């Protein structure tokens, strides 16, 4: 199965062409003000470099968050537009699961954490057994230290949220026997996303409009209203 995968949920943007788990091409760029200017260029290069025709892909997979709202809009709109125009199924893949899948090591708990700004992280908890990730806690947005304190076992903490707030969570993580993955491993990668998509999300892929963002954090207007 030939997959075009896209992730723009964090300050890094990446896209990959992956064929049955084999990475044909992947490109990642960080620190751009807005992925809107780069994403389609990256995708075009992947097709150009590999010589693969756009029409020959079987599936498009996109990272649906949680993450930067702006980033998600760029990635999902692009993926929806491509899937619609190429008449290919679109699969939405949770970004936290992509990050969790990028850990090395054996069985155990994995906690992906993505920087959510405002001194918060998007986080959830997976248990890995025999290489398969099973979500044991739903995605949430909260103070990074409060999240680590709430963990009941030793987990691998990975993602931009774990590296950005390293100073804040390191002591608590160590006390709980958690390890914090190096920063570069925690950047979501389109290749990991494609592999996850093929294993787990290809079956549920469908019309592009069926894919929606996993914002986790509601619009401020909802929060203001709830306070009233």
């Amino acid at each position, binding site marked *: 199965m030939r997959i075009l995968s896209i992730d723009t949920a964090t300050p890094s943007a990446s896209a990959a062409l992956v064929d049955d788990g084999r990475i044909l091409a992947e490109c990642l760029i960080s620190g751009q003000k807005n992925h*809107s200017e780069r994403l389609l260029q990256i995708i075009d290069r992947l097709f150009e470099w590999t010589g693969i025709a756009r029409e020959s892909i079987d599936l498009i997979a996109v990272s649906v968050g949680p993450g930067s709202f702006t980033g998600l809009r760029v990635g999902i709109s692009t993926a929806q537009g491509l899937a619609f125009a190429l008449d290919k199924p679109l699969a939405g893949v949770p970004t936290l699961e992509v990050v969790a899948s990028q850990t090395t090591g054996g069985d155990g708990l994995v906690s992906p954490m993505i920087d959510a700004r405002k001194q918060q992280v998007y986080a959830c908890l997976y248990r890995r057994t025999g290489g398969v990730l099973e979500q044991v806690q739903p995605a949430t947005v909260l103070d990074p230290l409060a999240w680590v304190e709430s963990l009941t076992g030793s987990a691998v903490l990975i993602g931009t949220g774990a590296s950005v707030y390293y100073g804040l969570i390191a002591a608590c993580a160590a006390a709980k026997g958690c390890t914090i993955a190096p920063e570069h491993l925690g950047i979501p990668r389109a290749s990991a996303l494609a592999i996850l998509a093929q294993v787990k999300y290809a079956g549920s892929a469908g019309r592009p409009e069926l894919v929606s963002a996993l914002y986790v954090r509601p619009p401020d207007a909802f929060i203001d209203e709830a306070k009233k």
Partner: protein
Amino acid sequence: MIILGIETSCDETAAAIVSNGSEILSNVISTQVDYHKKYGGIVPEIASRKHQENIIPVVREALDRAHMQLQDIQGIAVTQGPGLIGSLLVGVNAAKAIAYARSIPLVGINHLEGHMLAPHLECDIPLPNITLVVSGGHTNIYYMEKVGSYRLLGKTRDDAAGEAYDKVAKLLGLGYPGGVVIDRLAQNGNPAAFSFPRPMMHDASCDFSFSGLKTAVLYCVKNNFPDGVPENVLPDLAASFQQAVVDSIVEKTLQACIVCKVSAVALTGGVAANSRLRLHMQQRAQERKISLYLTSTILCTDNAAMIAKAGSFKLAHDLPFPYEMNAISRWPL
């Protein structure tokens, strides 16, 4: 050339198909008014999320209504700005992806230019002319020499006319969107019941100001009705406020015609659908022997047919593909 237009600059997700820059084959507008109503105005984050849900279904519907396939589309025009950045990003990126996947040309359009050209979808309007773009975000008077050549003669120095409607409707507890509610209520009111200022009416410029008018309504309510405005007074208040807005707009616009020695004026933008504005502009333009070109309500509001129309002047098969196109939140025309 058959062009797909896409517009997501504010709170309407819109797609349209226009043939040869003149024939509207479909014009789909999915409004989000109901989602923003309870907040008394547009919430940008909600607007962006709704666009994301709607963009592909709206494009699909535009094709269906035109009895076309995507393969029939020869070019895409998308609103690139100005507008809400999150909203614009959805349309811009979807349009880029579709055009790229289909290998067809794509062009980014200034939303204001779309509005300027909306009246031209319905009839041939003499050039040069004066075009008034009046909406929730803009109150601009342009001297239009020809397509692509516009001179901004005047604009609002504070609130746009539509914004003033929304704010006054909010302070009178009338709900959202203000333009529609006030226009309806004013039908049964006396426009001379309350005396509100016509700001900048005797100023030589073509600029507007509506913020003071809104404040005048606020103080009128505070001073005369400290316990709340009685139900039966609301139509008079609405009608008097509306008349002040209409007088300012009509006078300034016709004054621009006279100063520029132009005998044709076109009205466009959401507030150009206002019944009182249309009526008064008609009467007073006639008195001054100026031909008035009104736009159908459906083309006054934000729509994608006008974007496709603007695209028809710019799209060409040899254009380099705009890979780096980005949304532009502030983009004066």
